C-alpha cells in the first residue's frame, strides 16, 4: 500500500514539475523583443568620405544569424548630442552600408576625431540597440613610379594631430593587393610597414596578366584599425602583361564546337559510318532482290 502511495506521490510530483516547466515555457513565449547584436565599421576609400557599415545579427540556438530589413539610423556624434545622418534597411546579409552624403561631409569635416553612432530604435519586435565607433581623421596617397627599370608602388598615410594638421603615421602595416577574377592577390606580404614619413613602398610584380591593355587594379588596405577604421586606396596601372585572347572556339580542335570538329575526326567517323550504312543499304537491296525473285 505504501509503495502505491509513494508511487502516486512521485507521479504527482513529476506531473506538477512538468507542468511548471511547461508554464515557464509559456511565459517565455510571450512576444518579447528580440535582442540583437549591432556592429559598426568605418570605411574610407580613396579619401572619398566616410562609409558606415552596420551589421545586425541575433542569436538563435547558440549561433548568430543576420537579420534582414531592419532599419538602422546613423548619427554623427553620440546619442545625446548628435547630428542625424540618415537611415537604411539591412539587406539579406544583415548589412546596411551608409555613404555619408557630400552636403553633410562639409559639416562633419571640422574636427580631428569623429564619433559615429548606429542605432536600431523603435523597430517592432526588436530591442533598441546602439553602437558607436570613434575614428581619427586620416588621408592616403597611392602612386606608381619606375626607378632603374624597377616598377614600384608608393603608399603614404597621414593622420590629423590634435590641432588638425595632417602628419605622417609610422609603423602601419598596409597590405598591397592586386584584383584578380575571383579575389584579391596579396603582393606585399605581412611586413610592409610605413616609415617616419608615413611611406611604404613595394616592388611591383612584373609577371601578372592584366586585361587586354595590361591594366591591373591595385588596392592597398588597412583593415579595421582601432584608430582609423578600414582605409582603402585604389588605383589602376597598365603594368600587367596584356592578355592576348585567341578565339579557340573557331579553331578545329577536339574541344571546339561541333561545327569546328577536327577534319581527321569528321573524316574517320563519317568514313566508318558511311561504310556501315553502305553495307546496310546493300543488305536492304538484297532483301529487295529476294522479294522480286519470289514474285517472278
Amino acid at each position, binding site marked *: 500500500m505504501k509503495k502505491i502511495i509513494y508511487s502516486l506521490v512521485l507521479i504527482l510530483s513529476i506531473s506538477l514539475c512538468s507542468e511548471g516547466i511547461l508554464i515557464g515555457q509559456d511565459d517565455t513565449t510571450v512576444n518579447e523583443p528580440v535582442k540583437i547584436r549591432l556592429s559598426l565599421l568605418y570605411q574610407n576609400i580613396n579619401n572619398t568620405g566616410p562609409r558606415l557599415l552596420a551589421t545586425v545579427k541575433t542569436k538563435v540556438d547558440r549561433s548568430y544569424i543576420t537579420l534582414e530589413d531592419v532599419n538602422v539610423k546613423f548619427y554623427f556624434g553620440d546619442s545625446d548630442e548628435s547630428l542625424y545622418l540618415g537611415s537604411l534597411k539591412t539587406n539579406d546579409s544583415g548589412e546596411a552600408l551608409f555613404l555619408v552624403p557630400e552636403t553633410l561631409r562639409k559639416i562633419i569635416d571640422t574636427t580631428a576625431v569623429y564619433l559615429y553612432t548606429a542605432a536600431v530604435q523603435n523597430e517592432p519586435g526588436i530591442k533598441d540597440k546602439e553602437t558607436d565607433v570613434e575614428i581619427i581623421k586620416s588621408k592616403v596617397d597611392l602612386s606608381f613610379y619606375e626607378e632603374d627599370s624597377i616598377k614600384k608602388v608608393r603608399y603614404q598615410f597621414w593622420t590629423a594631430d590634435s590641432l588638425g594638421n595632417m602628419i605622417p603615421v609610422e609603423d602601419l602595416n598596409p597590405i598591397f593587393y592586386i584584383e584578380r577574377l575571383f579575389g584579391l592577390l596579396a603582393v606585399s606580404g605581412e611586413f610592409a610597414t610605413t616609415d617616419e614619413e608615413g611611406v611604404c613602398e613595394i616592388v611591383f610584380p612584373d609577371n601578372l596578366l592584366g586585361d587586354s591593355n595590361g591594366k591591373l587594379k591595385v588596392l592597398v588596405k588597412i583593415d579595421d584599425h582601432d584608430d582609423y577604421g578600414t582605409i582603402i586606396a585604389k588605383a589602376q596601372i597598365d603594368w600587367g602583361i596584356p592578355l592576348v585572347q585567341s578565339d579557340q572556339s573557331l579553331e578545329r580542335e577536339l574541344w571546339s564546337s561541333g561545327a569546328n570538329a577536327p577534319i581527321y575526326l569528321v573524316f574517320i567517323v563519317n568514313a566508318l559510318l558511311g561504310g556501315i550504312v553502305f553495307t546496310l543499304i546493300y*543488305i536492304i537491296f538484297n532483301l529487295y532482290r529476294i*522479294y522480286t525473285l*519470289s514474285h517472278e
Partner: protein
Amino acid sequence: MITNEHIPQNVNTIINDLEPRAFGRIGKLWVAVLVGFSLIGLFFYIQQVRQGLGITAMRDYSTWGIYVSNFVFFVAISLVGSLISAILKLSKAKWADPLTRIAEMIAVAAIIFAAIVIIIDMGRPDRFYNVIIHARIQSPITWDVIVITTYLFISLLLLYLPLIPDLAILRKRPERLSKWQNNLYGWLSMNWKDLPVQKNILNKSISILAVIIIPVAFGIHTVTSWLFATTFRPGWDSTNFGPYFVSGAFMVGAATVIAAMYVFRKAYKLENYIHLKHFDYMGRLLVLLSLIYLYFNINEYFIPAYKMKTSEVEHLKELFIGRHAQLFWAVQILGMIVPIVVLIFKRGRRPLPLLVISIMVIVGAWFKRFLIVVPSLAHPLIPTNRVDPTWLNYFPTIPEWFITIGTLCGALLIITMLVRVFPIIPISETIEEMNARQNKKL
C-alpha cells in the same frame, strides 16, 4: 560423357516442335507479372517526368546512378548477339547454331532498353532531341548514340534475315496459324520460295552482317566505356576500360543465353534441340570469358592499388575495405571467381548448376556496373566545402528502383513476345542439319 544429341528425323516433327506456341497458364502469369512491373515502372517514370529528376537520389556529385549502371548492363547483354551469331558462326562452331536466335532476341531487347534507359536518365525526354541537334562529333556521347542506333539496326536485320525461310515454312501450314500470324508471316517472309538463288543471296547477306556486327559490337561497348574513360575521375581514368568492358559484356551475355536456353528448353520441351552438349560448350565458353574478365579485373584493380595514387586512394579504399567493400567482394567472388571454379568441373556444366552459376554471373554483372558507375562519382576532383551528406551517399530512391525493375521487365517482355511470335530455334537450319546427317548416313 555428354550425350543426348538426338535430332528428330522427320520434317513435320521438327516444325511441330519448333513452331511458336501460345502461352500456357504459367506463360500467361509470367507475362502478367512482366506487364505489371513494366506498368509500375512507367507510372514512376511519368512521376519523374512530372516532378523532375529530384525524385531520384541523383545529386550534384552522383549525377549518374542506377540508370546509367543499368544502361551499361543492357549494352553489355546486347553483345551476346555478336558473340553467338557472328563470332561463333564465323569460327564454324556449328553447335551454336540453335542458339543464334535466342542470342539475337536477347540482343535486340537489350539494345532497345539500353536506348530507353538513357533517355530515362536524361530526365525530360525532349533532351534527347537536343543531343541530336547539338551533336558534337568530338563527344563520346554522340559516338554512343550513333553506334547504338547502328547496332540496333544490324541486330534487327540479323534477327530477321534467318527468320525469312522459317516464316515461309510456317506459313505453309495455315491451319495451325491464327489470322494475325498468317498475315504477319506472309508479310515478313516476302513470299520466300526457297530458290537456290534466294538462299545464296540470303546466306551471303547474313555472312556480311555477321562480319560487320563484330566491329560494331566491340564499338558499342568500347564507346560506352569511353564515356567513363575519357574523364580524369578515379576508377574511370583507365586505358584498360575498353577491353575490360567488352570482356565483361561477353561474359554476362553468355550467362544470359545459358539462362534463356535453360528456361526455353524446359518451357517448350526442346530437349531434342538444345542438348546437354550445348550446356557443356556454353559452360566452357563462360569459363573462358570469365577468365579473360578476371585478367582484366586484375589489371583494373591491382595496378592502381599497387601505385595508390593520391586521387585513387579514397576510391580504392571504399571498394576494398570501405562502405562498398561487401558488395565489391561479393560481386568479384560470387560473380566471377566461384563461376570459374565451379564451371571448370564437368558436373558444374550440367544444366541446373550452370543455370544457378549463370544467374550469379548476371546478378553480379548488374551490381558490378553499379560499382563502376557510382563510387567514382563520390570523389569529385574539386570537392565542395561542407557538402550536403546526401551528395556523398547515393542510394537509389523507390522510383529509381521501380523504373529500373520496369526496364528489366520490359526487356524480358520483349524477349517473351518475340518467343511467342517467332520460332526460338531456327527451323530451316535444323531441317538442313537433319538432311545433312541423313545424307551422311547414306
